[in-house]
């Protein structure tokens, strides 16, 4: 067993190591992401789950290098195909020589060709990520023509193809965003994310604003597209039931830290971290007898003054009142990582 939670496989597509992001506020610095490591392999759907404010979106923005002050990346690396994304120099649009790159990089990249062409993103609110005064077709062709030297006509043909892929009538290409329904807008955002055939798509709560029927339809379509084009997905949501259904592996975040990481079904059937167990006890089922669910007592901590030691201890039913040290994130069975000092590990391993 290794001590590196990001080394899930030999050559991951995305490899986040010990990432640390701080928000520098007037009242002090808030560590929004505190030493998070995980990786996403080719063709995989990796889910990041957690409550609002736990750092999920901050990680997504860090990967694309679109964090804005007061947020600052203060530590760690984000390797994409072996290149450290954090070495990209925004101003010169070229890559500085990174010193801590593992081996030789597979591709030559700068930030322009990295963003969108390699890694694209689908945001939560389609209405806010589309330009309200530009027709659908122009928004899609803009993306294509920014990155590829093709003429307008060809770009339009490509836009039509994309609309077909995401199941929108291509006649709607001339529509403005407000003329499209919520589901269609979200499909359009997905079409734009697919425009340059990226290898990784980051989806930040892509269906949270949609109704369940539309949500299911869109996710099934994404799944099909993924099989067709072979991209990987970093999927972010607070809805654990949805996440277990959709993802291959899941990382559970709490107060800026990764507390558990395991294959999706294992999170459901053998959760180990008390927070994961509490989250699972926060979603009632639509089948079987009614069970009283308790959720988790208390509320998420103030990150300006995070609790000492384990950040979850104030709400933890297993906490004995001793631990002062923050628990290490370790692999308890192959592929299953947990940061917890309080629960007896042998129980978990013995259950195998």
């Amino acid at each position: 067993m290794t001590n590196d939670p990001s080394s899930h496989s030999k050559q991951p597509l995305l490899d986040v190591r010990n990432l640390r992001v701080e928000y520098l506020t007037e009242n002090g610095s808030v560590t929004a992401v505190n030493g998070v490591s995980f990786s996403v392999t080719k063709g995989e759907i990796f889910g990041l789950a957690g409550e609002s404010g736990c750092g999920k979106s901050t990680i997504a923005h860090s990967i694309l290098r679109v964090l804005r002050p007061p947020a600052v990346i203060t530590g760690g690396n984000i390797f994409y195909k072996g290149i450290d994304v954090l070495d990209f120099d925004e101003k010169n649009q070229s890559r500085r020589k990174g010193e801590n790159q593992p081996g030789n990089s597979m591709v030559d990249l700068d930030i322009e060709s990295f963003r969108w062409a390699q890694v694209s993103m689908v945001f939560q609110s389609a209405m806010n990520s589309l330009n309200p005064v530009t027709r659908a077709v122009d928004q899609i062709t803009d993306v294509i023509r920014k990155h590829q030297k093709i003429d307008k006509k060809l770009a339009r043909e490509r836009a039509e193809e994309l609309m077909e892929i995401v199941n929108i009538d291509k006649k709607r290409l001339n529509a403005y965003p407000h003329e499209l329904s919520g589901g269609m807008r979200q499909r359009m955002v997905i079409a734009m994310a697919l425009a340059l055939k990226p290898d990784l798509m980051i989806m930040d709560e892509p269906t949270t604003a949609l109704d369940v029927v539309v949500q299911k339809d869109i996710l099934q379509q994404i799944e099909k597209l993924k099989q067709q084009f072979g991209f990987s997905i970093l999927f972010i949501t607070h809805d654990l039931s949805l996440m277990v259904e959709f993802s291959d592996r899941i990382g559970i975040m709490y107060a800026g830290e990764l507390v558990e990481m395991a294959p999706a079904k294992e999170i459901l059937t053998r959760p180990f971290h008390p927070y994961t167990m509490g989250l699972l006890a926060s979603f009632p089922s639509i089948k079987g007898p009614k069970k009283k669910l308790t959720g988790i007592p208390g509320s998420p901590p103030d990150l300006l003054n995070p609790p000492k030691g384990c950040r979850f201890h104030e709400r933890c039913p297993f906490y004995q009142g001793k631990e002062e040290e923050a628990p290490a994130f370790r692999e308890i069975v192959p592929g299953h990582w947990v940061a917890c000092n309080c629960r007896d590990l042998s129980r978990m391993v013995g259950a195998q």
Partner: protein
Amino acid sequence: MIQPNPLLPFDPSGVPMLEARHLFKRFPVGTALQRHNVHAINDVSLIIRRGEVVSLVGESGSGKSTTARLIIRLIEPTSGEIFLDGVDMLKSEPHKASLEYRRRVQMIFQDPFSSLSPNHSIGYQLERPLIVHKRARGKEIRERVLDLLATVGINPPAQMIDKYPFELSGGQRQRVSIARALAVEPEIILADEPISMLDVSIRMGVLNLLEGLKEERSIGFLYITHDLASARYLGDRTMVMYAGHVVESGESIDLMENPYHPYTQLLLAAVPNPESDLTTREVQARGEVPSLIDPPPGCPFAPRCPQVKDICRQVMPGVSTIKPDHWVKCHLFTPDA
């Protein structure tokens, strides 16, 4: 099989506390030359008994919140009747609901960040209903406020009184909103998506609080949500809305185990199910909710329905009773169709 009076749910307990019959609401839109009507609520009837939670589920825009606003009389129905303890309220108080009606029927809103006044302390916001409705005076007021805060699980309550909403977490704010509704000792609370803006881990705490109030104080709840699982968790009965119509109603567990209406079946199939893979069940009825502006006759679900028949596009189906306390509006279950 058809109930003679499509008034609906079977009620063994005699006069229900609150009953709405055949509510319709039209909103006019367009210009003077081109008048159109949004058919927001179409023939909605429901009853709420003492100590019962009725869940109202549906997609956004299906008329759930409009139904609540009609019942609490923030807006007036185009036609229909609302009975409270057997009294026709729209007839006895035609212009505006009385203070007494407002006391008996209270509401909790979705967004606890905007439903509390940012300029006043929590103590002040809880005193106001007590004073306006003359529920307490003098020194009693403070005691009652502390009492209310303790009831909704805020501990210690004395520290909360001088705080302002911005100092509170989302869960605390929603608890204060619940306390404010409870201040006037209501008999019915309409809760409009009370947990959807809250963090996942604290949602169950708020739902359990509502359930406790139902049991301890025999308050009747209308629980409005888009989440079927929580509708089932909290609701004794569940009603499913689509495009302003209630299309199916039944005892919650029964309704979700034996859904009859194709729309209910579609909704249930779309609920994320961690135990299955996404690909196991394809969504059967693509498409979206139809426009509510001057809709065509017939069932609103007909354009999407996998089992649509000719009659569905012409006539809106009436109520078919499947069993006591479970009915559906669908031509598949009308005997003559």
